[in-house]
């Protein structure tokens, strides 16, 4: 028996895993939960926008031109990013999974490249626009808020910004790793 035949015989000798009734029930639940998860995901993203729009109306931002523009830009940047995410998630979900592997791999590579573009270019640009709009709001915050609360807003935003940059870095690394593994 040569070495490869030994590997092959080892492979076949592995204990056969017999599916149980519980395995099949889990599978049925998985099928049901998948659709539920997709709905919840979209709902969470859209409610984020809803909260911002509510805030916009609540503080009567429309009465203050500058605040209205800055908040409008922030909402638009966030809205665009959410739309791109929904589109991208649907794109992956709708890839024809039953096509031959070489074809599927090519489609998957294109998908990862588009994710690189989203994380590497689009998101930083939108983040910069969002941060700039926020920055222009700071004088208004300074005038209308207490010093403590104003400082809290400034520092917590900076911490969030740093956190988000790290998040982006790890996302890009993840897509790059996936691309490399596919090659």
């Amino acid at each position, binding site marked *: 028996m040569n070495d490869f035949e030994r590997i092959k015989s080892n492979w076949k000798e592995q204990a056969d895993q017999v599916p149980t009734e519980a395995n099949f029930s889990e599978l049925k639940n998985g*099928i049901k939960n998948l659709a539920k998860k997709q709905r919840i995901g979209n709902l969470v993203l859209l409610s984020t926008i809803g909260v911002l729009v509510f805030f916009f109306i609540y503080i009567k931002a429309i009465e203050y031109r500058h605040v209205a523009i800055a908040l409008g830009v922030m909402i638009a940047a966030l809205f665009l990013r959410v739309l791109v995410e929904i589109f991208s998630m649907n794109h992956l979900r709708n890839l024809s999974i039953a096509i031959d*592997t*070489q*074809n599927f791999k090519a489609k998957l590579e294109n998908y990862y490249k588009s994710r690189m573009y989203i994380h590497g270019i689009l998101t930083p640009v939108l983040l910069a626009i969002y941060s700039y709009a926020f920055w222009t709001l700071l004088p208004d915050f300074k005038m209308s808020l207490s010093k403590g609360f104003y400082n809290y807003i400034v520092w917590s935003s900076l911490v969030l910004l740093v956190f988000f940059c790290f998040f982006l870095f790890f996302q890009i690394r*993840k897509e790059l790793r996936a691309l490399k593994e596919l090659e």
Partner: protein
Amino acid sequence: MSETEFKQIYNDNYARILRLCMGYVSGDTDLAKDLTQEVFIKVWNNIKTFRKESNISTWIYRIAINTCLISLRNKKSKRFSDTLLTEDILQKEEATQIKEKQYQDMYRCINKLSATNKGIILMELEGLAQKEIAAIMGLKHEAVRTRIHRIKNQLTKCVNHE
């Protein structure tokens, strides 16, 4: 398709799909079970697109390999844990120890292959005909034959620690 028919397909293909997934996740049974479940969810969701041009198991293999490719994105950069397995092996009988060491080497070496080559050799190990492997992978029969020859040498060298 009725639930009974689907259950039959599930029972007939579960073990081989689980083994294939094990090959993609370095022998991690829990991860492989999750992947296998994902595969069958996709089988259920796409069953209407199955045109019976090929065997259903060939079609399921396609879905399984493509699902494993997607899973590479979420794979933690975990290396095959020699330490953990070695400690575990020490407590077992000698014959079992040798077998487990062979499995450990086998998965470690399969893990070194590219995503496509992994798929090809895992199906070869399962005993699929090269023509069928070619149809699943979207490669020419001749190309698959050459690749299998090359991968066999690669695996053999690897398990012999050359």
